[in-house]
């Protein structure tokens, strides 16, 4: 029998619809980090992001097990749309009832996923990702929204323009300013992009 890790999402979904829980486990492990990162970058709080990730998958489980899933072959975009909508709702509620949210604290390095490498490589990457995470949170909402949709939800600029009700040039402009802002802020914090060599 074919290993589940070799199956595409659509095949895993079919197995899951037929009661195979291991197939669902593979789907969750495959996409959990994207869903969590998307939610985190919208609500900017890791505990809320954790709740939202659970709510997203629970909604997906209910939909699939009740036979209402009809997005054949497009599981991840569907999942990310659920996460995005739940996160936006949650974010809006927060704005209506503002609460003081403590800065994450703790050792956030533990919650970031890194590639293998030397200790020093890892440290540089951890520091860079830590900084990047903070800087993304500081972007204006409109720029952060486009960045999340393009990088984590894999939406094209035209799809983003349609979803946010702006022209494609506005969506492109927001993304460009997001990148420029991030680069400026990284420089201000002394980052010189030595960990992204050319030609790879």
């Amino acid at each position, binding site marked *: 029998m074919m290993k589940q890790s070799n199956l595409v999402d659509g095949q895993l979904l079919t197995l899951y619809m037929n009661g195979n*829980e291991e197939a*669902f*486990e593979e789907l*969750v*492990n495959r996409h*959990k*980090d*994207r*869903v*969590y*990162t998307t939610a*985190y970058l919208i609500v900017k709080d*890791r505990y809320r992001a*954790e709740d939202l*990730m*659970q709510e997203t*998958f*629970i909604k997906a*489980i*209910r939909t699939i*097990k*009740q*036979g209402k899933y009809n997005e054949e072959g497009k599981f991840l975009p569907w999942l990310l749309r659920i996460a995005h909508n739940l996160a936006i709702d949650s974010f809006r509620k927060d704005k209506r009832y503002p609460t003081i949210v403590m800065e994450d604290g703790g050792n956030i390095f533990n*919650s*970031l*996923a890194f*590639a293998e490498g030397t200790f020093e490589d890892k440290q540089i990457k951890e520091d*860079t*990702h830590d900084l*990047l*995470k903070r800087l993304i949170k500081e972007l204006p909402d409109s720029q952060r929204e486009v*960045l999340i949709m*393009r*990088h984590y939800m894999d939406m*094209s*600029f035209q799809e983003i323009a349609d979803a946010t009700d702006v022209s494609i*040039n506005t969506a*492109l*402009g927001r*993304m*460009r300013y997001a*990148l*420029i802002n*991030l*680069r400026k802020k*990284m420089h201000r914090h002394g980052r010189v*992009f030595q960990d*992204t060599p*050319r030609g790879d």
Partner: protein
Amino acid sequence: MIKTFTKNDLLRYLYDELPTLEREEMINAQLTDGEVEHETEELEDVKKLLDGFVMKAPQEAVDNILAYSRSFRR
């Protein structure tokens, strides 16, 4: 005739959303225009960082999701 690219074209190139012909013209523009090449590299650096940025979902939440799925009756 040399095509003039806008800043937004450059972004569409970076995100692989330019049609093939325009993409090739953009690559040529980078070879001949230092300014275009420089701006492309600057934006590409940040894009690469973002491409590699993903947060690890907490295992406890994953366990909860899987337990919920196993207990859910159709």
